[in-house]
């Protein structure tokens, strides 16, 4: 295969990009899978301690939110997320980090217009669109339910 220098750089660049993407996916899979297993571990622990399944599931999420926030505060979250990518973003840990990290960064601007308002920078849109989606579904569900569809 004959290539001039420019073609080669392009070719090598594409290969590197492709393999990086595969490595990223493997890392995301392992970290994301591990966090979900951790969640399952807390869930089983809370069931073992006598909570109902649904309560245990919620408490497990709250525990992950707690840990992800703590890790964000002591600076470990960014170090892990650099490798994990979507592996730490997609689980509830990503939401917790998105609330905590901008809040801590805004400390110098005070606790009202800094910390508290920055908590909503990413969490706000998530809650707004999630809530609106649930309301649209709720209206549809209401009419189906009332007409005896479900």
């Amino acid at each position, binding site marked *: 295969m004959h290539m001039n220098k420019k073609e080669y750089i392009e070719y090598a660049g594409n290969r590197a990009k492709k393999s990086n993407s595969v490595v990223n996916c493997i890392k995301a899979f392992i970290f994301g899978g591990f966090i979900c297993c951790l969640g399952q571990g807390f869930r089983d622990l809370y069931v073992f301690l006598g909570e109902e399944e649904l309560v245990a599931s919620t408490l497990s999420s709250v525990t992950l939110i707690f840990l992800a926030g703590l890790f964000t505060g002591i600076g470990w979250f960014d170090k892990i997320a650099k490798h994990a*990518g979507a592996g730490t973003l997609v689980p509830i840990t990503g939401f917790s980090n998105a609330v905590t990290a901008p*809040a801590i960064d805004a400390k110098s601007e005070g606790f009202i217009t800094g910390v508290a308002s920055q908590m909503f920078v990413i969490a706000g849109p998530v809650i707004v669109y999630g809530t609106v989606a649930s309301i649209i*579904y709720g209206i549809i569900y209401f009419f189906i339910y009332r007409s005896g569809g479900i």
Partner: protein
Amino acid sequence: MKLNDYLYSFLVGGALCVIAQIFIDKTKVTAARILVTYVVLGVVLTALGLYQPLIDFAKSGATVPLTGFGYLLAKGVEKAVKEDGFFGVLYGGLKATAAGISASFSFALIWSILFKSKEK
């Protein structure tokens, strides 16, 4: 405790992260968009009856990712409509997710008091 719960949690949870990773690598989409998309997707999939089977199969593998947050929103509004009729539309979603949201803000405030921003 069943070992299969952990296996399926790992596989399904991991797979949901890989889908997001592919989008991040291919399209440079921002983290905020991924989070919003996953939550709304969770609501839609639950409404279509497609997410409940995944919850039953993978347990935390389906509840811990943000699609699980959307699942809670949708299930919450269903429950509220059954109990309270149309009024339930307005509070069902947030009621079901209130614990997670309240915890996030309260903990974040505590961490903000305790920790300083790291120099980058």
